[in-house]
């Protein structure tokens, strides 16, 4: 198993920049998520690590060795494709044994290894069936079997759950994570589903428009977003953005939002002009004492919680509150925000302003 270092990697397709100079490190044994909307360059990044695309410039180190220009067969990396790409003219056993045959492993050893892997994945009973008639989940398991059978240094997975039914997806996500914990293999996983990324990942890289927006643990990315894009992309419903004009000075712990002082984490960086007050829905509370008033537009009941949509003087926002509180559309309520969680953004660049909340995270890029 191995550490993967991606250093200043860039990929151009003609004049189109698919990935702008990107760097990050995947530690040995980590379950690493590449997250972003479609077309952001996450799959291209994954394919460059696997060797299916060669980077235009930059270096990729696998276990300390520079591999960026090597063919995939010389990298010892396994890849699980979104559509599984099982060889349709072979049965399950042949599919799983195919990577071993290419290494010239003796027949008996191949057979034993395939049986072992099939046992881990619980697909022993379908080993001799053709892949054509398999269910989505079994195809997924066969694809995983083909990946793990030769014990590669790292696994690449390109939206491996994307082709499954919603109900089965969750089950498979658990199975995948359990498999990873058991094997302890470095895994790079591409997804556009932020819930999947949060649920399974040790670390997440959020990409947008060929650029890495943020890189960190799920908690860091959720609580301390580096940009408005990340804050918006992660979380459902996403972070509320309340635009305001104002001045922030280093050391201040208050901002003026429509005439009301709102506490924020102690600022390290100052800014003035168009700013954005970012607060997650679960950190918005209804309070009659508050002078900051908003009108209730709608309430969605979700069982334990409810999502209340409100019209504030700084724009629309959503609050996630206890389902037992009664709110009715049309009424006006006071709002309070949990101040230690607030992030301020510069509106023109979308960048988060540094405060005691996020300084450590933003400091490591």
């Amino acid at each position, binding site marked *: 198993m191995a550490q993967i270092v991606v250093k200043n990697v860039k990929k151009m397709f003609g004049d189109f920049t698919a990935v702008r100079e990107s760097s990050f490190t995947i530690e040995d044994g980590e379950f690493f998520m590449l997250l972003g909307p479609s077309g952001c360059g996450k799959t291209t990044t994954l394919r460059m690590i*696997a060797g299916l695309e060669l980077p235009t410039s930059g270096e990729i180190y696998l276990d300390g060795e520079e591999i960026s220009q090597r063919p995939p067969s010389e990298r010892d990396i396994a890849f699980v*494709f979104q559509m599984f790409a099982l060889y349709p003219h072979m049965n399950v056993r042949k599919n799983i044994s*195919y*990577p071993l045959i290419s290494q010239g492993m003796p027949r008996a050893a191949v057979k034993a290894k395939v049986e072992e892997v099939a046992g881990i994945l619980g697909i022993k009973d379908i080993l001799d069936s053709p892949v054509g008639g398999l269910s989505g989940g079994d195809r997924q398991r066969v694809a995983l079997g083909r990946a793990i059978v030769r014990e590669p240094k790292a696994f690449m997975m390109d939206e491996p759950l994307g082709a499954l039914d919603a109900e089965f997806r969750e089950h498979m996500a658990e199975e995948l994570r359990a498999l990873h914990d058991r094997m302890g293999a470095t895994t790079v996983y591409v997804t556009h589903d932020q819930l999947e990324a949060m649920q399974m990942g040790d670390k997440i890289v959020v990409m947008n428009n060929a650029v890495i927006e943020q890189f960190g643990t799920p908690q860091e990315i959720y609580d301390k977003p580096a940009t408005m894009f990340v804050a918006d992309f992660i979380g459902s419903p996403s972070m509320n953005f309340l635009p305001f004009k104002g001045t922030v000075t280093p050391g201040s712990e208050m901002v003026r939002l429509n005439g009301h002082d709102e506490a924020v984490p102690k600022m390290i960086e100052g800014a003035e002009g168009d700013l954005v007050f970012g607060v997650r829905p679960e950190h918005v509370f209804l309070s009659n004492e508050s002078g900051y008033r908003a009108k209730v537009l709608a309430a969605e009941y979700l069982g334990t919680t409810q999502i209340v949509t409100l019209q504030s003087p700084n724009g629309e926002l959503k609050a996630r509150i206890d389902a037992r509180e009664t709110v009715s559309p049309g009424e006006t309520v006071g709002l309070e925000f949990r101040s230690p969680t607030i992030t301020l953004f510069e509106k023109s660049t979308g960048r988060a302003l540094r405060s005691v909340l996020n300084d450590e995270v933003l400091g490591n890029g």
Partner: protein
Amino acid sequence: MSSFSVTEPSNRSKWIAGALVIGYALITMIPLVWILLTGFKSPADAISYPPKVVFEPTLEGYVNLFTTRTRQTQEFLDANPPQNWADEIVRQYDMVIVGPSKFGERFMNSVIIGFGSTFLSIFLGTLAAYAFSRFKVPLKDDLLFFILSTRMMPPVAVAIPIFLMFRNLGLSDTHLGMILLYTGVNISLAVWLLKGFIDEIPREYEEAALIDGYTRFQAFYKVVLPQAATGIASTAIFCLIFAWNEYAFAVLLTSANAQTAPPFIPTIIGIGGLDWPAVAAGATIFLIPVMIFTILMRKHLLRGITFGAVRK
């Protein structure tokens, strides 16, 4: 109560459609039936009017097709009794068999040239189609159009330049020359058809093979080729049928050495009067290889012809 379905045809319309298809098939089969029957008729029955449907079958046509015969005097015939059943048949015209005809040789020429050019067309066509489908080829669209443009006129239109070219290169009346010629005509069809088939094969299969430790070429022949089998089979049928049936170039460019069956069969007419049974026998035997080949490839053919229309 009967129930109506919008998508499912009613029994009555199924019957009508079936009858129409069967009727049409019977009409198109009349020439084939005529050839098959005429091959087993005597020369007199073959030209009788109205045509005989019921007749006494004889192998005369086949014997005449495969042998050369000479007329002999009565004394010679009396002195040499017939040696076998074929000899017996020709005796009724006071003839004896003196040797095999050229038909066997011509037929083998057809086999060599037809299958040779089909193999070469498919081999080159598959490689070219794979390259066009998967790689960034400079001027790809122009090259593909150029390849297609060789099909935009009837091949015979360039017969004279090809005749001169073959004469200068020493390719006239050679197997190699005919194989190259038919390959040249078929390759555009092969490249275009096969490119369509290979485009349909997801790249992920090859990428999976690359990841699994195979080279690009191994991925091509271990993963892509088996997937393209349907396309290769149906393309091969089209190529073979063209090369097998081609007449004009065969007449023009071949004579003693590499002549194929199509220009040979009509020459039978000239040998001993209008020998329709022999011609029909030749045509029947000539049909057999393509028929067998098509039947062998049949399961691939339907999907091949409707490719692109039916998605997996």
